[in-house]
């Protein structure tokens, strides 16, 4: 009865609705989130049901969205900010990095900023420039922020609610090309911890460590490899900062081969941190170097060639071959 088939976007919408129902201090604010329901319709219908004071169509200014959310949070609200596209977060970067991330620390815990910053991220939708970026590493590199990425409708439904109830500011990444993916969501189930990674496919030979839109790609790669007799494990990190190292390291110690898969440019990325940490902690268990299958270290390319930039089945399987052949 409480289970229904939802797209990832609709699951977020239902999760946001729950959050608004559960706590009158929860606000949604962003560009076009009200009457339009957001450019991806994630906030569809919420302003109609919760009013213009709680679902706020803001002026077109990202620093203003996050900066006023800081003041609202100091006043005791729980703002959920929508940044319309990944490439538009940078006008708010100063407020996020200098103010949001540091306030609890600077105030010795006196000022809490329970702000959730939702960002649709990643490529693969044939968009024009600034609409396909993966800026998660910047935020993972910033102490004081927590960073999560959902990859499927079930997680989307629960993780957005958990993020909003967190007393820490959270950057919440949504895999925009998976907004239309469907799954059955049981809203009466018990959710996993927001900070736990999830072994989404068990295997014995190689561990693929991934998150967000690349989880599905990795599962498809693992399935394809399975037809050739390869037994691949896929770990969905879910929380990018902090990382659930227990789950990650347990998997790698079992398979002895690790590959990190992500869309973001590979150089100095979250994938680099994961590779470093796994190498440090599993030095004697690893049978090959940790490999990374990521975006190239270029600006995001034009859409007609984005498939060559994004990690896909073939690049992942090529890396699996290299890892096992080492």
């Amino acid at each position, binding site marked *: 009865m409480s289970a229904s088939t939802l797209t990832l976007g609709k699951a977020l919408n239902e999760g946001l609705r729950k959050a608004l129902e559960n706590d009158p201090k929860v606000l949604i604010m962003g560009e076009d989130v009200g009457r339009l329901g957001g450019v991806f319709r994630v906030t569809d219908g919420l302003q109609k049901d919760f009013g213009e004071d709680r679902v706020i169509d803001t002026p077109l200014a990202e620093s203003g969205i996050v900066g*006023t959310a800081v003041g609202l949070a*100091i006043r005791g609200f729980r703002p959920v900010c929508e940044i319309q596209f990944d490439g538009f977060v940078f006008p708010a970067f100063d407020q996020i990095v200098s103010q949001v991330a540091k306030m609890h620390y600077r105030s010795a815990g006196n000022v809490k900023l329970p702000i959730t910053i939702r960002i649709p991220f990643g490529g693969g939708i044939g968009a024009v420039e600034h609409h396909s970026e993966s800026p998660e590493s910047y935020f993972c590199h910033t102490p004081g922020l927590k960073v999560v990425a959902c990859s499927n409708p079930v997680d989307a439904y629960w993780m957005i609610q958990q993020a909003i109830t967190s007393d820490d500011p959270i950057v919440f990444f949504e895999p925009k090309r998976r907004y239309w993916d469907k799954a059955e969501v049981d809203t009466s189930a018990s959710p996993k911890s927001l900070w736990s990674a999830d072994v989404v496919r068990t295997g014995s030979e190689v561990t693929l460590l991934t998150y967000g839109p690349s989880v599905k790609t990795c599962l498809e790669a693992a399935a394809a490899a399975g037809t050739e007799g390869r037994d691949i494990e896929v770990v969905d990190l879910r929380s990018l900062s902090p990382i659930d190292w227990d789950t990650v390291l347990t998997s790698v110690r079992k398979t002895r081969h690790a590959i990190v898969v992500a869309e973001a440019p590979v150089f100095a990325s979250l994938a680099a941190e994961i590779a470093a940490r796994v190498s440090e902690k599993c030095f004697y268990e690893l049978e090959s170097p940790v490999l990374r299958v990521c975006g190239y270290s270029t600006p995001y390319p034009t859409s007609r060639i984005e498939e060559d930039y994004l990690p896909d089945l073939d690049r992942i399987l090529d890396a699996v071959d290299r890892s096992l052949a080492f």
Partner: protein
Amino acid sequence: METAPTGRHLLCPSDRRSRVRGSEDKEWQTLARSAMPQSVQPSEGPELVQLLTPEGERVEHPDYALELTEAEYRDLYRDLVLVRRIDTEATALQRQGELGLWASLLGQEAAQVGAGRALTGGDFAFPTYREHGVAYCKGVDPVTLLGLFRGVNQGGWNPHDKGFQLYTIVIGSQTLHATGYAMGLQRDGADGAVMGFFGDGASSQGDVNEAFVWASVFQAPVVFFCQNNQWAISEPLERQSRIPLYQRAKGFGFPGVRVDGNDVLAVLAVSRAALERAREGSGPTLIEAFTYRMGPHTTSDDPTRYRLAAELETWKLKDPIERMKAYLSRSGMAGHDFFDEVDKAADDLAAHIRAGCLALPDPDPISLFDHVYAGGSTLLDEEREQLASYLESFEGAHS
């Protein structure tokens, strides 16, 4: 929620160009002309709201009446003297090596005391890093203010207790926080108002201009209090604006007023009126307190490299404390006994500041991991453990 009809047109230069070229919209052209300053010559002088002349003569202003008791006049004088003493002592402590840095408010006492004393219990203030006088009015112990500059904390007071946010060092960021807090007051149906402080330099920041837009369209109960002290480190006002700063408000759709920032009475009256307007639901006001930074930007600055001593001498004649003292003396509201008593109170405060500063404890190195997250972090638990065992590895570390 109403916005001023002129605001939208005047914000966009490209829009303006195309419309003027088309010459179709006569109404708009008239609007544009009326909004442009007839002259930007600084020699015309500011249209100042003033209630106390530099010579200490009490004058009236048609829009800003101020009725104070004799005790209230004397209290304002005491505030000015004590706030200046906080600054003097902190500067001395920096010179003695006890503070890493100090941002002096010398010359801006009246602007800060006038604004600070206009704030009431339900109001919340968002300061820059120079609002020591406002902090004093909000009940923050001056010793607590020194923590940031001594490097023992990043602001030792609880903003919720004081109605006074921590200092903000990145220029202008706090004006958005002030606006957001004011939007929160609106949603709570609360009575209070917010005052967001910034300077002439900050008026160029995107965040300040975004704060103006937001406050205007949401009619947020916030007063933007700009202390125009003429200098942004080495850059004069002319590098920030071609028009008087208070006139910027018009383009955003709310009133702006320029007040003599060295006249505590005028600042108090103007601030009270703006806060009252905000509390009534009539939206934001921009106050430009026209004043002067008589000292360096901070103790690390050397103003002799960029401004003339004569300018400082001119402003000394407009000193905020001297004019108040002259007024109290001449009007018979205070005499030697009172001034001596205030000087004694300043000496006592100075002793409190010196002793308190030296007694501020250095934090425990391990505490650097505290409060990064409200919900804790396993990564930081691990790093804390690493630092602790590293420190313990030194011989005699815990002897």
